[in-house]
């Protein structure tokens, strides 16, 4: 291989690595990153209803500041579920200056038969906050680990659980720097 070809291969590799660097290695924020406040935040949008996931879902507007969520993994053993997805915990990002510094996570509360954001401090069933992320084309579905139901949001912005995968809401993750 002559020098020119080597150079072309190197440049190509460099371009690939730069493109790869621009993308996220994982949507999950590690514990260290949470401590360092290097949180990978997302607008979690259901385009059918137009709602953005949060404690009080709001309608998506491009120009407005939207509620942000981030994902963590409680148990590293759950990092990979071959061909299925991963069990992630969905947190809503709260701004410190708002005074609400608690950790709010999406919980499938089977006792109350309801889905809502709860403070971690008051969660008794740990895996009620674990959500298996299933990929459907370029969107994702959230499946609860507790009862294997799927998360749905209706036209009023209320969360519920459904058994039928087809009836589940598809969510678009929009990464926000």
């Amino acid at each position: 291989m002559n020098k020119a070809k080597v150079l072309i291969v190197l440049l190509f590799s460099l371009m690939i690595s730069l493109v790869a660097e621009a993308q996220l290695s994982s949507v999950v924020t590690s514990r260290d990153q949470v401590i360092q406040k290097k949180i990978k935040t997302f607008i979690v949008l259901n385009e059918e209803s137009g709602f953005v996931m949060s404690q009080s879902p709001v309608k998506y507007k491009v120009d407005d500041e939207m509620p942000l969520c981030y994902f963590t993994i409680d148990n590293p053993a759950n990092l990979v579920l071959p061909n299925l997805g991963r069990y992630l915990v969905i947190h809503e990002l709260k701004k410190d200056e708002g005074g609400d510094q608690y950790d709010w996570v999406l919980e499938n509360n089977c006792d109350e038969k309801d889905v809502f954001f709860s403070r971690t401090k008051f969660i008794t069933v740990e895996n009620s906050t674990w959500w298996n992320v299933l990929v459907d084309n370029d969107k994702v579905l959230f499946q609860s680990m507790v009862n294997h139901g799927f998360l749905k949001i209706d036209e009023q912005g209320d969360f519920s659980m459904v058994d039928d995968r087809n009836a589940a809401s598809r969510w678009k993750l929009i990464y926000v720097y």
Partner: protein
Amino acid sequence: MYFKAKEIVAALFLLCMGHALVGQSDVFYTFFLEKEINLKAGGVFVHPLKNVGKETLIDVNAFLEISIEKACLPLAGDGNEKAGNVNAWSQMPLFWPATSPDKADVVVSGSYNIEKESDAEVFRFYETNTAISNPIPYFEVRPKNRVSAEVILQYKYTDGTLVSDTLRFHEISERKKNTKLKSMEKLLAECQKALEYDFRKLYVFADYETAKFSLEKVKVSDKGLKEELKSAGDLLKGRRIAELGNLYKRIYENEPSKEAAFCLGICYELVGNYPMAAKYYKQMPEFHTIARMKKSLLLFDYLQSIGAELKLEEF
């Protein structure tokens, strides 16, 4: 012609004086032709520019008026020299506002169009971690703000000549990783600032820079001249250029040398006699003087081309 002869003479005189006035020690300002401008001095009448855009994002006429006011203020003398005249090298108002198009040497008219646009590009990615069997897709929305401006100016001179000029501004801001999105307000403010700057530049054809003039050591055998030469440094620092030039001229005529020619060249340059300066500098070529002479002669030729009567200082 557009320049009035006596004003040009006064301007050149002040240009020469200007060297001494603004100089510190042996550092002086030199002036050169930056660009030829469409306003060739005299009375200027400006018709308000027509907005051909859909909306009024920037009131161009408002700051055009301010720009003209600044450029056309009467000769300073009230301690407001800097603001009084944009054309700093001459300290003279080369332009003044005409009360009507009939009384103007040049009538400016034209139009402007300022547009803004916001959109966003959406990119789809997947996690790149190879350990993940089912990478999660995510999107990035990169909003973009764009502001563009086009100002078309037409200059109509008394002899019927018509010249057009276009000022353009185009700025796009995109939110990317490590890059903040500039708000539309900020982009419009930048656009206004750029246009204001461009308007101000319409009145400035000569620019200036500082240059340090150091006299070369000259060997002189004549005792009288040798004695006189001791005061050369003080003459330069005291801005007594006419005396200094006279001294070096006598030295050069008595004992021609390239060092004496160089010093005489400096003196001619400092009084604005660029052709003579170039002639003497040639005997001892040096990069900085060649570069300065090139610019200065351009200014000299330009002034001559527009009919300025140039009074050249001799020693």
